[in-house]
C-alpha cells in the first residue's frame, strides 16, 4: 500500500524533517534541532504538531444518537453540554480497548478524534453498532494541527481571535480566512494548548502563519517524550484490546452515573474490576541512575519473580532522567515500591512512582 501523506508534508520537508512511517503515513519524527530541543521548546514556548493522520469522525443525529452512543461509551452524554469534550474508549464486551478517543458534543451531533492506526476499524465498529440511521463522516478533507506550550494561547489568539476564551476540554467553531475551523483546548503534552481542525487546502498557510508568530514544528519523537512525562497513554503501548480502562488506571474517565446503571458495552467487566480490583495495573516507573528501560522490559521483584512489563520508556528531557510506564501486579503497585528491571540481561533497581512525571499546567478556566 502506498504511503499516505498529510497536507503539511511539503512544509515538513522544507523544515528538514526526518520522516518515519506511522500508521501508514509518512510523518516527521524530528526536525533539524532534534528531539530534546523540540521537547524543551514546547515546554517553554509553543510547539506545532501535525496530527492530521488522526481520524476526525463527525456523527450527526438527534437525541436517539446520544442514547445509542451511551450504549457504547461509558459517558454521561445526555448531560454533556454542547462544545464540551470527554476522554473515552471504544471497548469490546470484555472491556478490552479498541481505541482511546476524545469525543466532543457539537451542534447536531458529535466529533470524535481517533488514533490513526485504529480509525478505519473504529469506523467499521461504530457503523455496525449505530446502524444506518446516522450520518457518519470520517473526514479526510480536514487536517488536524495541535499547538502546545505556554505561548500557544497568545500565538493562536492573534490568528483566531477568541480562542483564549475556551476552557480546558471545550471547543467551538471559529471563522478564519472565510473557513470554518473547529478549535478545542486540549492536547497530549501536559501543557496548555489547542487542537485545530482545518480544511486541507488551508492547513499549510495556517501553520506557516503560526511559525511566523514564533511557534515551531515538533516531530513525533518529542510528542512521545512529552506525553510520557505527562503520564498519558499511547494506544498500542499502554492500551490495547487486552487491557481494560480499570487496568490502565483510567477509572476517572468512566462517568460515575453510568456505572450505577451499567448498560454500556464492557460494563459488566468494568464493574467487576471496580469491585474486586484488577490483577495488574498501569503505574509510573523511575529507573535508578540513567538507565533507560524500553517497551517489553521485564519487571521483577527481589525474589526473581516476574511481576510486570514496561509499555513505554525513554529519557524525559524536562525531568532530566529516565522515565517509564508499565503494568505491574496489584500488590506491587504502591508508590515507592522497589522493583528490578531486566535490561540487556542484567537487573537494575527502579521504583514505582506516581504520574505524571512532569506537572501539568492545563488552563482550567479563564481567570
Amino acid at each position: 500500500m502506498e504511503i499516505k501523506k498529510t497536507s503539511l508534508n511539503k512544509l515538513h520537508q522544507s523544515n528538514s524533517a526526518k520522516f518515519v512511517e506511522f500508521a501508514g503515513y509518512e510523518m516527521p519524527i524530528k526536525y533539524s534541532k532534534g528531539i530534546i530541543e523540540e521537547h524543551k521548546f514546547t515546554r517553554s514556548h509553543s510547539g506545532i504538531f501535525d496530527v492530521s493522520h488522526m481520524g476526525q469522525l463527525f456523527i450527526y443525529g438527534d437525541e436517539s444518537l446520544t442514547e445509542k452512543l451511551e450504549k457504547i461509551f461509558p459517558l454521561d452524554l445526555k448531560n454533556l453540554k454542547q462544545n464540551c469534550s470527554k476522554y473515552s474508549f471504544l471497548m469490546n464486551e470484555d472491556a478490552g480497548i479498541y481505541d482511546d478517543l476524545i469525543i466532543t458534543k457539537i451542534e447536531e451531533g458529535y466529533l470524535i478524534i481517533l488514533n490513526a492506526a485504529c480509525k478505519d476499524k473504529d469506523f467499521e465498529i461504530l457503523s455496525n453498532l449505530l446502524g444506518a440511521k446516522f450520518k457518519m463522516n470520517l473526514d479526510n478533507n480536514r487536517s488536524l494541527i495541535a499547538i502546545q506550550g505556554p505561548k500557544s494561547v497568545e500565538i493562536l489568539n492573534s490568528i483566531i481571535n477568541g480562542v483564549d476564551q475556551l476552557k480546558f476540554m471545550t471547543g467551538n467553531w471559529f471563522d478564519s480566512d472565510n473557513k470554518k475551523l473547529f478549535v478545542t483546548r486540549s492536547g497530549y503534552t501536559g501543557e496548555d494548548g489547542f487542537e485545530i481542525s482545518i480544511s486541507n487546502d488551508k492547513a499549510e498557510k495556517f501553520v506557516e502563519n503560526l511559525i511566523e508568530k514564533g511557534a515551531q514544528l515538533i516531530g513525533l519523537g518529542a510528542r512521545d517524550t512529552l506525553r510520557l512525562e505527562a503520564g498519558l497513554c499511547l494506544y498500542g503501548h499502554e492500551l490495547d484490546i487486552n487491557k481494560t480502562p480499570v487496568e490502565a488506571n483510567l477509572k476517572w474517565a468512566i462517568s460515575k452515573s453510568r456505572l450505577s446503571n451499567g448498560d454500556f458495552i464492557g460494563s459488566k467487566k468494568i464493574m467487576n474490576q471496580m469491585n474486586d480490583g484488577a490483577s495488574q495495573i498501569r503505574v509510573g516507573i523511575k529507573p535508578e541512575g540513567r538507565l533507560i528501560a524500553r517497551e517489553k522490559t521485564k519487571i521483577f521483584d527481589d525474589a526473581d519473580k516476574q511481576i510486570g512489563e514496561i509499555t513505554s520508556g525513554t529519557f524525559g528531557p524536562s525531568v532530566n532522567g529516565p522515565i517509564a510506564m508499565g503494568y505491574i501486579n496489584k500488590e506491587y503497585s504502591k508508590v515507592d515500591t522497589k522493583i528490578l528491571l531486566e535490561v540487556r540481561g542484567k537487573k537494575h533497581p527502579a521504583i514505582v512512582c506516581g504520574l505524571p512525571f512532569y506537572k501539568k499546567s492545563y488552563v482550567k478556566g479563564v481567570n
Partner: protein
Amino acid sequence: MSEVKFSKEHEWITVEGDVATVGITKHATEMLGDIVFAELPEKGSNVDKDGTAGVVESTKAASDVYTPVSGEVVDTNQAIVDDPSKINEDPEGSAWFFKLKLKDSSEMDSLMNKEEYDKFAKENAS
C-alpha cells in the same frame, strides 16, 4: 599518534604505542540523534574484534557499540556516562569511549581511512 581509522559500525580508532582509543563517529551521532545514555565495557575485561563493547541510547532507541579491534580494556571515559550529551558535542574528540591494549595490531589493517569512511558513510546514510 597513528592516523584515525574507521569501522563499518561507525567507530573511530587511534593508536598510540600499543594502546588504542575508540569512540563513535560524528556521522553515527547524527544518525542516532540526542544521546541520553552510555554504557561502557568494564576495565580489565577483554573484548573481541567486532564484538559489543558498550551501548548508547538516544531518546528513541538503543544501539550497541562495537570494538573495531581485540584487546584488554585499560581505561573508560566516565565523563560520557555522567553526561551522555557530551557524545553529541564532541564525538571524535573528548567523548572517546574506551582505551584498549591491542592484542593484534594487524587487525588495524582492515579498517577504513577517513576518505574511505566518508564515502562509506555517505552511501549508508539513513
